[in-house]
Structures are given as structure tokens and as C-alpha cells.
């Protein structure tokens, strides 16, 4: 009977019910989208790194695992490394940030093709002139670019020469020499990818490189990929926790306000229930049950909305924000929102339970 009373109460004020559910749903969506986004960025980064086809990565000392740009290494390292035992091929690349999480990458196309197996051209083809740029499909979709268009990046006008499939090193490629000139990094590179002559020689090649370049960060690709995690992205976990915290506070405030208003509005009804013999526990239980139903529907709605948000983000900015769905976080975002909502209902529930029956019955 209490459940029926709760459901009828929720139906009695459909707009307030809808807004409360929507507010709880949006906080669930927010948490799921932020987590999906952070994971999507990590996954995309892993996929692109794996797509290079290298076995070893060499980076300058003291650089972050993710988000590195600039060119602090001398290009002379590349021939030196190629002379080392078991090294079949080495290529230096230049990464230049163009704002936000975006960057363009300078490559030696012949070496890149040899190491990665070549770019997957969907439209157009490889570089023909120094100002050519190759972009992946997501980048092209986001910026509405097609082959032959001009795009300004890093204060330079580039001509889109080819559109390639995503998942290999970068979203935008230019010739390394041109990017070095443009960024005043002549003969400098950001990092070096190395291919060994035989996978069985990876350990030996790795050991030798660490020996000849003792101060450099040298990883096997498996090791490097395992480092691309939220823990290694400066501030990412703190950011996610902040968003989760804000979601809890938001849920708390929304439910607090909704239930507080409901209690005020239902003062007389609470008085009637108490006159009929409802205990304080009955009243609190009723309001908690109401909150639980609101939060549960809100959570389900929030999960649904997270897919809508994902679709919208992927449609609008597929290159910048590769958000993925995170079903394993449903069981975290749900209880988090539920906790915030239940906390928000405690004070209004207690206030209702403590209401003087006679005053409540006289309430107009």
C-alpha cells in the first residue's frame, strides 16, 4: 500500500517528478560521459600507438607518457639507433600541438609506411607537395574537410591530399621536414619508433638500447601501452573524482529541494497519515521509497542519455572527443547518484516525521 501511495504521489506532480528524474539522470549521464571520454581518449591513444607497428619507443628523459609535443631530441639519434644490433628500422617523428588535445605529426612517409604497413587511404593519396596534409576520417568529419580543401593549422595553410582510416599514430600527418621548419625545430624530433629484425630479439635490442642511451625512456611497445592509463595522465583521476563529487552534491541538492518542497506541500497529508497511526519510521520510509524510485528511474534515464550524449559527441567532434560507452561504470554511477539522492531525502524525511500532527492537520 505504501508503494501505491508513493507511486500516486509521484503521478500527482508529474512535472516535478519529471524534472527530478531528469536532474538525477543528467548527473548519471555526466559521470558516464566523462569516464567514457577519458577512457575513449586513452583507448584511441593506445590504438594509434599500436598502429605504428613499432616494437620499441624511445623518448627523451623526463617526459610525460601522454600528451607530449615539441622536439627535444636530435634527429642524429635515428641513424645511430639503426646501427644498433637487431634494429631493422627506426623513425623519428615530430608532434606539434595545435590546441586542446589536438596535434599534427611530422613523419617521413616512406619510413612510416615501411614500419606500419602503410596508411589506409579512403580518399586521395600520399603527399605530393610540401604543403600537403593527410588527415584521418574523424578529423575530416569533424572539420568538414575533403580532399583538395585548404586547412589552416599551426599558422600554415595545408592542402588536404588524402583522407585515411583512423588508428595509426596520428589524426593529421604532414611531412616531417616541413613541420620541423615551421616550428623552428630543424633536425629535432619528438620521439623515435624502432622496429626489430625479429620479435625474438626484442629483449636483446631493448637491453642494448638502454645501455647505449642510459638517460632516455626506452620501452617495449607492450610496456608503453600498459602505461597509457588514466593514472599516467596528469590530473585525469582527480578530474573524474571531482566530476563524481559534483554529481553527488548536485543529486543531493536536487533531491533535497524536491523532497523538501514535497514535504511542505504534503504537510496536511502527512498529518492525516500520522492521525491514522503512521509512525515516524513509516513517514521516513515512504519518502525514502519515493526518493529511491525517483533515483532509480533517474539512473536508468541517465544511462540511456549517456548513449545519446555519446552519439551527439561522436557526431559533432569524433576526432577531438572519442567517447566510448562504459557499462562497467553503471554500477558505480548508479549507486553514487542513489546515495546523493537518499542523503538529500534524509532531512526532509526527518522533518516530515517530526511534524506535529495537530499543526499538520490544520495546515492549509
Amino acid at each position, binding site marked *: *500500500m505504501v508503494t*501505491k501511495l508513493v507511486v500516486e504521489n509521484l503521478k*500527482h506532480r508529474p512535472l516535478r517528478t519529471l524534472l527530478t528524474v531528469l536532474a538525477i539522470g543528467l548527473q548519471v549521464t555526466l559521470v558516464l560521459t566523462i569516464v567514457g571520454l577519458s577512457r575513449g581518449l586513452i583507448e584511441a591513444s593506445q590504438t594509434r600507438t599500436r598502429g605504428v607497428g613499432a616494437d620499441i619507443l624511445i623518448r627523451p628523459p623526463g617526459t610525460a607518457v601522454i600528451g607530449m609535443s615539441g622536439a627535444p631530441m636530435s634527429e642524429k639519434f635515428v641513424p645511430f639507433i639503426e646501427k644498433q644490433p637487431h634494429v631493422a628500422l627506426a623513425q623519428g617523428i615530430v608532434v606539434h600541438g595545435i590546441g586542446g588535445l589536438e596535434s599534427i605529426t611530422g613523419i617521413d612517409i616512406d619510413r612510416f609506411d615501411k614500419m606500419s604497413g602503410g596508411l589506409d587511404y579512403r580518399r586521395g593519396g600520399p603527399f605530393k607537395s610540401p604543403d600537403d596534409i593527410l588527415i584521418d576520417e574523424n578529423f575530416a568529419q569533424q572539420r568538414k574537410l575533403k580532399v583538395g580543401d585548404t586547412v589552416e593549422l599551426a599558422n600554415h595553410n595545408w592542402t588536404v591530399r588524402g583522407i585515411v582510416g583512423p588508428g595509426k599514430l596520428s589524426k593529421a600527418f604532414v611531412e616531417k621536414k616541413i613541420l620541423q621548419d615551421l616550428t623552428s625545430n630543424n633536425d629535432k624530433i619528438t620521439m623515435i619508433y624502432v622496429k626489430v629484425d625479429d620479435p625474438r630479439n626484442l629483449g636483446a635490442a631493448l637491453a642494448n638500447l638502454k645501455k647505449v642511451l642510459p638517460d632516455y625512456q626506452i620501452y617495449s611497445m607492450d610496456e608503453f601501452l600498459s602505461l597509457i592509463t588514466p593514472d599516467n595522465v596528469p590530473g585525469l583521476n582527480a578530474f573524474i573524482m571531482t566530476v563524481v563529487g559534483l554529481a553527488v552534491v548536485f543529486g543531493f541538492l536536487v533531491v533535497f529541494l524536491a523532497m523538501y518542497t514535497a514535504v511542505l506541500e504534503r504537510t496536511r497529508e502527512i*498529518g*492525516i497519515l500520522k492521525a491514522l*497511526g503512521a*509512525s515516524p519510521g513509516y513517514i521516513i520510509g515512504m519518502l525514502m521509497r519515493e526518493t529511491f524510485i525517483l533515483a532509480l528511474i533517474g539512473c536508468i534515464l541517465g544511462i540511456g542519455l549517456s548513449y545519446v550524449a555519446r552519439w551527439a559527441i561522436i557526431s559533432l567532434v569524433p576526432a577531438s572527443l572519442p567517447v566510448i560507452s562504459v557499462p562497467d561504470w553503471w554500477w558505480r554511477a548508479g549507486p553514487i547518484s542513489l546515495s546523493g539522492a537518499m542523503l538529500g531525502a534524509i532531512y526532509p524525511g526527518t522533518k516530515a516525521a517530526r511534524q506535529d500532527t*495537530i499543526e499538520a492537520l490544520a495546515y492549509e
Partner: protein
Amino acid sequence: MSDTIISARELRKTYHVGDVDVHALRGVDLDVRRGEFLAIVGHSGSGKSTLFNVIGGLTPPTAGHITIDGKDLRQMSESDRTDLRKQSIGFVFQKYNLLPTLTAHDNIALARSMVGKSLHLDQDQQFQEVLTLLGIAHRLHHKPRALSGGEQQRVAIARAVVNQPAILLADEPTGNLDTENSERVLTLLRDLNERLGQTIIMITHNPEAAAFGHRTARMKDGSILSAATPH
């Protein structure tokens, strides 16, 4: 089982309104017999509603003694008084006080669920007869806003008696009704009193309504003015 179901001696109730003490009951002595239909009359501010609230366990007395069905109300905790309302007392209010979100059926079933009884009113033959007597059996699936004042009050009476409480307290039950509906409700209360043997205490300011009871007690300035007089 004692013949007296309610016994009050030197019953006092004082409300603190800001810095002022309002003595709503100033030493009420009252005995109500089991199965009696007692009308309490008095002008506004005479203390009759406060007496209603104290007898109903809605508020504790400040001083004096009162026993309801043998239980000392002054010794009762808030929780005990909640149980008393649930088990032994049915309320009928002037403004009906039905829950607007529930149908008439569910308003009655809610009171039943409070004491853990089955929600299926149709399985209770005796209660079906009460519903027929009240003339609301065909209106049970309507919400209060779809019912007339008289119908709402009859639903409220049904809710008050559904658990067969020992005492039915009615506070100005005809205060919001026209003459025809008032008479119908009062007749029903008397019929229920006769059929179910329930003790009824009815607060009213209307002498004609009071005449439906077995006897009338008059209140003034927080006291029973005259000994209850039989009709």
C-alpha cells in the same frame, strides 16, 4: 472489561504560544461508557478540540489523569500514542482529510494496511455491509476530488471504522455539509454506533447535531460546564 472506556480526571492542557501560556483544558472530568455516543458542544475556544486531540492521542495532556480503554495516556510515549491511534481510535474530521492522490477505496485500504490487515475490502463481509449502509460502495474507485462533500465524509467515516476501533472521534463532522448531508452523516453515525457498538465522541457546536448522541457534555473555558446530560 470495564464499562468505562474513557476516564478523565482534572485533565489539563497548556499550550505555550510565544511567551504566553494558553490554558486550553482547565481540569476536565469526564467518563464515557463503552458503546456510548457522546456529543461535546461548546463555542469556539471552549477547549473541545483540544479535548478531542488529547483523547485521540494526538497530543499528551499537561496534567491530570486520563485512561483510554484502560491505558493511562500520561504514561504513554509518542510511539505508544501512535499505536493507540492505529489500534483503538478512528478519526472523522470536519474537512474529511482524505488523501487526494488515492481513490476512496485506497484511502480506506490504507488505514487497513496500517494495522496489517488485508487490503481486499470485498473479502470483509461485515465491512461490505458498512459500505452499503454508508452508500458509497459504488463510488470507491473515485478520487476525493470527484466526490461530493457528503460522499467524502462518508468515505472518511468508512476509513475511521474499517479497523473496528473501540472509539470513533468525530470533530465537527457536519461542519462542511449542507443540511441534508449533515442529517445523513449524523444518522449514519448513530446507526454505526448501534450496529457496531462503537463508542463515538462527536465534537460539535450545533445543538441539533448533538441531539443525535445519547447525551451531551457542554464545555466552556476549558472545562466541562455541566454534567453530561442524557437525551
